[in-house]
């Protein structure tokens, strides 16, 4: 994938093999002995806080007990029956604000939660199941269209297939996996894991994936609605938010997600365009992923700028720590004011205005400063790609802000059309939650469309 906006940039100095070493597992996997020691620390809580907080309802205490009892396959299936993407979730979940935060061993006296994420990964990576662990129920004769082969769509498709339905997934990109394939930092999901996981998931059968199918482009919701018994929208948030400044389209300024996608897909990291000095704007995990990855590619100076303080960052403390460890400079309380361009119209830096809370609201102080940079990466959040829901039927979807409104069964206001993942209102930008949405929506779809049949 070529990044048009940066094509004039130099390339990394190091060879691909050396660069690849900078993108190996950030948190190395546990070996058998480490897993034995770590699993022995689990107290096997009743009504366990880790499970209660898990967005995908994984019975954590149970799978850890199975690991300790050397029943790795049992542990893995226990995870997968709640979360078919348990492998990628074990790698990308912000466990520090979920299960590991809730772990009772995180109590004051100890302050050392059980490494639940790494144990989950251990179970999935070391299972020796040869056949797909889940069997399909008798065919319902129903066919469901799923839009988007990201975590929500894949999870929904798998569960629908398991319940006896046939599924066709419409995916715009060349590969399945969504953000697991294109959006997560390379060192969090190594060794082509996202594709392996998709392959595993598809083993259940009854799922067809059509690539190059863009909703609002060559696929229209109104047609899917007619052709299928139900439609699930797992669209994600495809549009990067804009700064709203002049020069937004200048060479050298682009969305962080586009660069991360290119990095994730690059066969040769040394061929990537690499700015010597980069600015990353934002404070979410994507901003951190961007800053750390470009630093690891060999950028000399990476500055992450955020308009509020550290406490307000949506990137977890753990993520902030990763950024600091990777020598990312972090500048808080400053907002973009002007994109600075050179004579050729390319980015040469950015002017920021310092900010402060005035009368309870964030406001510019009038004081400015400039940071010289060869590239600016926007990571200020993602929004709905409006093009994708632009056909006459899609336009009638009820919205909550720019997200799609759904009820607690993930039904949109349109009959037989469901949605889940980041594109719906309850979305929290978590892979694990998208998986849960997909799973629950599948049950709702199955019940609704097959219930209808019975009623008729």
């Amino acid at each position, binding site marked *: 994938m070529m990044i048009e906006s940066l094509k004039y940039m130099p390339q990394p100095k190091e060879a691909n093999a050396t660069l690849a070493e900078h993108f190996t597992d950030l948190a190395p996997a546990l070996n058998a002995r480490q897993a*034995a*020691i770590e699993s*022995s620390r689990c*107290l*096997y*809580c*009743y*009504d*366990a*806080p880790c499970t*209660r907080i898990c967005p995908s309802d994984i019975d954590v205490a149970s799978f850890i007990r199975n690991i*300790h009892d050397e029943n790795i396959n049992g542990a893995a299936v226990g995870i997968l029956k709640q979360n078919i993407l348990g492998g990628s979730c074990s790698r990308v979940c912000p466990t520090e604000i979920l299960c590991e935060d809730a772990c*009772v*061993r995180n*109590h004051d*006296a100890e302050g050392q939660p059980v490494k639940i994420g790494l144990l989950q990964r251990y179970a999935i990576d070391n299972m020796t199941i040869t056949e797909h662990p889940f069997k399909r129920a008798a065919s319902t004769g129903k066919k469901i269209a799923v839009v988007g082969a990201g975590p929500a769509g894949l999870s929904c498709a798998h569960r629908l297939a398991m319940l006896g339905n046939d599924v066709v997934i419409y995916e715009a990109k060349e590969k399945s996996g969504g953000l697991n394939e294109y959006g997560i930092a390379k060192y969090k999901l190594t060794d082509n894991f996202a594709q392996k996981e998709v392959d595993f998931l598809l083993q259940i059968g009854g799922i067809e994936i059509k690539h190059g199918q863009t909703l609002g482009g060559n696929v229209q919701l109104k047609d899917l609605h007619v052709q299928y018994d139900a439609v699930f929208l797992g669209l994600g948030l495809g549009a990067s938010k804009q700064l709203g400044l002049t020069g937004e389209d200048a060479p050298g300024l682009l969305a962080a997600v586009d660069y991360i996608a290119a990095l994730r897909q690059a066969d040769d990291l040394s061929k990537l365009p690499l700015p010597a000095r980069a600015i990353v704007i934002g404070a979410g995990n994507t901003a951190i992923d961007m800053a750390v990855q470009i630093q690891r590619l060999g950028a000399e100076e990476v500055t992450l700028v955020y308009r509020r303080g550290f406490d307000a960052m949506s990137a977890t403390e753990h993520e902030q720590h990763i950024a600091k460890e990777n020598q990312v400079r972090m500048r808080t309380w400053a907002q973009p004011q002007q994109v600075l361009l050179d004579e050729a119209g390319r980015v040469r830096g950015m002017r920021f205005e310092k900010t402060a809370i005035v009368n309870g609201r964030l406001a510019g102080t009038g004081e400015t400063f400039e940071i010289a940079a060869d590239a600016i990466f926007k990571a200020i959040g993602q929004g709905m790609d409006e093009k994708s829901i632009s056909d006459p039927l899609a336009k009638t979807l009820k919205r909550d802000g720019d997200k799609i409104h759904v009820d607690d069964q993930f039904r949109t206001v349109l009959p037989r059309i469901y949605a889940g993942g980041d594109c719906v209102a309850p979305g929290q930008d978590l892979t694990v939650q998208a998986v849960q949405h997909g799973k629950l929506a599948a049950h709702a779809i199955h019940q609704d469309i097959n219930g209808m049949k019975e009623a008729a």
Partner: protein
Amino acid sequence: MADLSIEFCGIKSINPFWLASAPPTDKAYNVVRAFEAGWGGVVWKTLGEDPAAVNVSSRYSAHYGKNREVIGFNNIELITDRSLEINLQEITQVKKDWPDRVIIVSLMLPCEEKLWADILPLVEATGADGIELNFGCPHGMPERGMGAAVGQVPEYVEMVTRWCKTHSKLPVIVKLTPNITDVRAPARAAKAGGADAVSLINTINSITHLDLDQMVAFPIVGGASTHGGYCGSAVKPIALNMVAEIARDPQTKGLPISGIGGIGNWRDAAEFMALGSGCVQVCTAAMLHGFRIVEEMKDGLSRWMDEKGYKSISEFVGKAVPNTTDWKYLNMNYQVIAQINQDDCIKCGRCYVACEDTSHQSIAQLIDAATGTRTYEVIKEECVGCNLCEITCPVQGCITMVPQETGKPYMNWTQDPRNPRAENIKVTETV
């Protein structure tokens, strides 16, 4: 620091920590290392008649805890596999080089008086401080009519003990097997035979675990296995009870006891002593950690004694015996109730599920509607004071069992009106 020296059935020892008759005391090299490390004495690994026993490979297996700590240990090793002559020579030399340390010689022979009469003078000539009769070995040797095969028949115990007292002036310690219904019977027999002391427990018949692929127990010897003798911390509760049984038996009261069974630290040793052991013997802990553990054992015991004001070990030997009684003499009016310290509680829910599923439904799970936080509270009216919640709680001291003021006097089961066979005349009075 408190004085750790003891005198045990006439044998003076610089401290109460001896190594039990086992692999660690098999030869001079090991014993010298033990004495260098500070052990007060050893019971030399059991001698028998020539030709010496022959051992198999492999020999040990273990029962593990959650984090691979060894909870119990199992062995199928026989008595010494070295010749009597070499052992006697080494004992003589070591005793000569270490005059302030105790060497007890463990013996096992068939039940023929002549064999005992022949060997005893040889043992005496080494300068050893005493003999211990191995009536406990549960594996291999009983098949040949020795070890536990003798220990399980009180008449044999008494008979062999008497032979030893007849043919030797050395103090005789009779080592008892736990593989018996009532350990008091062989203890009484030993006393009747003239024993100067008993030592217990020897190991317990055991199979620790299996290889489920090969369908064979451990330790594996060429595709088969046999039961071994179980020791290590897992057997301590069994040993403590047997020691207490003998200590509080009117017929054996006062008979010196050398406590053995899962002792690995000073506290274990103190517990055995409090139940009547004048000295203790250690094996498994040393086999797992080396002889150096005696250093912490001595230090810990003497500091505890200082703290408690005990100047010598004899001051607390047997001190817990009067408080060890029959069930029927326990106070039926005593009542404890669990109390959960909410500040220490980590909300793991273990006490709740344990009580709810398997006990008396005496803990309530309260769910905060706003935060979902769980709180666990004791329902006092339902709590019978069983200790289960306290036991399953992973936080030490979080759950305590609090004695209640019942205002009722001591009343044991023999006095209890609810006892249909109450011995006390008061029952009829209250009816």
